[in-house]
């Protein structure tokens, strides 16, 4: 990357950061000095919204880490206000794509061959463009239809620069703010996740691992990776086609019951998360499809993760304690999952458990972590600065709230116990 570009990127991030700091902190300082009341909730909400908007614009124009950072922030309902989350969720769709010549150059460099030595056809227009890569339809010489995921050139460089910038901004922020949000750990985690997502060999490994997990299960379909043509930056895989999982009308038109789809989807994630301890951590609707025969297709293993031993059981216990309104079991489960209170006592978790229990009291909890449930949990945690949430839990909770969102769209509910095989009826 050119030095000038690097400087320009740094400057833009820096400028936005200063503006934001001024917006939040300067008025507070002013109020304190002049002895006025702190800003009202309505004012704060408007301010959050405006800020999120500004960040989103910056991210979309800069791609790379900024988009990922937005995605990451959008998942941390335990740290950020809802106005932020809503806005930043949008950064998933709107990325412009790279011209074909750029893509061709990457593929040829990676494979060490001209494009037509490997592919008999290669669509110039991508199927999709995301933050780190875009996907093209192509055909191998033996006639197999494939999807080719191609990493943007320079993306690693861009990301390194962005990460450095953000680190600097975070440090400055933490220096100035007497009660800083802990952005550094978030950034560190983002760095880890990005390194995963940039390594398509890892993605291929993960995809194969999940394929193996469901090898004898015809409810699930995972595209095969053609390792022969895949590298760290190019992934050639079986091309899949299906109904997007949120398209209820199309699912019904295919003669499928959306309730079965929801239950199967829950089964897939329960098997990965609770049983196998290894999971595709990115079940947004762009990564899930249904075949007309009712198989659920899972793609995009870029963000797959291994959970520590015992985590699945801990999570099961947490769900179970919610189902049975059992506060002390819930406190135990929090501990098993690695939640820590900075004060070292359990009171924090007892309070959170109480709040969760009183909330799920009204309906029967069937082990479905709805968005409202996780929202409630994270709201409770956000308000209690002594609680520390393990990052694995954040990722898993995000998965379950995605699933619950999909279930909601399909007009159904999934039952975790049934997904585990509890019912034979």
């Amino acid at each position, binding site marked *: 990357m050119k030095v000038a570009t690097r400087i320009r990127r740094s400057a833009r991030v820096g400028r936005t950061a200063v503006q934001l700091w001024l917006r939040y902190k300067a008025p507070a300082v002013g109020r304190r000095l002049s002895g006025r009341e702190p800003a009202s909730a309505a004012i704060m909400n408007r301010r959050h919204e405006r800020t999120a908007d500004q960040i989103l614009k910056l991210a979309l124009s800069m791609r790379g880490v900024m988009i990922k950072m937005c995605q990451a922030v959008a998942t941390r309902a335990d740290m950020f206000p809802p106005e932020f989350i809503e806005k930043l969720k949008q950064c998933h769709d709107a990325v412009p794509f790279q011209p074909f010549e750029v893509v061709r150059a990457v593929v040829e460099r990676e494979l060490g061959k001209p494009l037509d030595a490997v592919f008999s056809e290669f669509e110039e227009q991508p199927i999709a463009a995301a933050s780190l890569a875009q996907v093209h339809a192509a055909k191998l010489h033996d006639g197999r239809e494939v999807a080719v995921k191609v990493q943007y050139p320079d993306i690693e460089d861009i990301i390194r620069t962005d990460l450095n910038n953000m680190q600097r901004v975070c440090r400055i922020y933490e220096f100035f703010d007497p009660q800083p949000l802990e952005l550094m750990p978030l950034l560190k985690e983002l760095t880890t996740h990005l390194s995963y997502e940039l390594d398509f060999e890892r993605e291929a490994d993960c995809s194969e691992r999940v394929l193996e997990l469901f090898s004898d*299960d015809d*409810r699930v379909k995972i595209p095969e990776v053609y390792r022969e043509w895949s590298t760290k930056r190019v992934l050639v895989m079986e091309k899949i086609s299906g109904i997007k999982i949120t398209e209820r009308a199309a699912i019904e038109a295919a003669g499928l019951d959306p309730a*079965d789809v929801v239950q199967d989807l829950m*089964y897939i994630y*329960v*098997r990965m998360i*609770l*049983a*196998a*301890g290894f999971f595709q951590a990115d079940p947004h609707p762009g990564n899930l499809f249904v075949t007309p025969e009712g198989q659920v297709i899972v793609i995009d293993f870029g963000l797959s993760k291994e959970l520590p*031993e*015992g985590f*699945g*059981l801990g999570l*099961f216990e947490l769900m*179970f304690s919610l*189902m*049975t*309104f*059992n*506060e*002390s*079991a819930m406190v135990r489960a929090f501990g098993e999952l690695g939640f820590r209170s900075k004060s070292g006592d359990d009171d924090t978790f007892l309070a959170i458990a109480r709040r969760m229990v009183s909330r799920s009291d009204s309906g*029967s909890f*069937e082990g479905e972590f709805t968005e409202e449930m996780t929202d409630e949990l994270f709201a409770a945690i956000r308000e209690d600065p002594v609680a520390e949430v393990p990052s694995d839990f954040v990722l898993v909770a995000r998965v379950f709230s995605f699933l619950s969102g999909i279930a909601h769209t399909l007009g159904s509910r999934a*039952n975790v*116990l*049934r997904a*585990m*095989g*509890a*019912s*034979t*009826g």
Partner: protein
Amino acid sequence: MSATASPLHYSEEELLSSGSFREPLFANGVRCHGGFDDEGRYCSPRVLFRNPAINAWQDRLRQGGDTLFEISPDLIPPVHPNVAQAKLLLQNGVREPIVRALTIISIVEGFGAMIRDVKVPDLESLLVEPIHGTALAHLQRGLFEAHARDESGYRDEGGHKQMWEAARDAALENPKIPGDVLMRLMGRRDQRGRRKPLFPEIGEDLERSLGFMANVLVVEVMAAETFQWGIDLLSDPEISAAPEEAGGMVENIRADEKPHVEYLRTALSEVAARTIRTVDGKQISGKVVIDGLLHGILSEVIKNRRSDQRDDLREGLEKAVQVAAHPQRLLEDFDSLEFDWTPPSQTGFEASEAA
């Protein structure tokens, strides 16, 4: 429905009430349901009205000349590994398979919570004869809920799930739980659950709920073997660090399970004694349906349960015994302790299946 306790009618509140205990039950430090009376005897939870109610419904059934069916315990294969085998493993330091088995039992007990989600369709209109004053009329008015709470615990009181955990932890001194427990649990039965209906004429909803109840009943009957196994094993001082506490805990669980078997077989017998309206406006004998469902489930049990249990254990046993001093010899000794079991040729429910 009237709330006064006439022998055949009970309110939900009554069916869920326990009366008072002199002392609550604590299992390995965790508060559980039930408690002890003045003589120190264990008393199950939620049976103050539930037990007399079940007796009353059963009496009424018999007085009407109808049968209260029974599932023969001979249909249930012995637990594998048997007590002697389990003891052998533990004495040789091979704890993992037993800890896993006990943990899976506790989780499966917890799954009993599912019964509260069974949606029984409107039986008043689906059955020709009235169901006033029967167990059937109380399924969703207390019986399912009491059952669910017994199994999975409720609020600050643990249920069988926590009691099995406590028995395990007391006897084996807080063992490490193998990381693959849920994987093994999920992998063990055929997940392709969408079975073809046996009686399409009664409608999917009715068959599903009757089938679910029949299944739970069979599981409860099979559990009797498991309880005896748990009691014998965990109260053996040679391998249990807390023979009295752990063995006693499983005895308490066994006592609590009695009403589950009883209300389920009563309700299903009540259906068998009635006539079901089919979806196409005809009628079918309830006995044909109930016998058919039970025969199907029990045939499976006879055919597969023993080999399933064996496969379950065998997977990983060879690896697990490696911690022993002489793994190969241990395996041989283990196999020599196996006892024969010949599956019965009949389930006892085939008569009207053929009819």
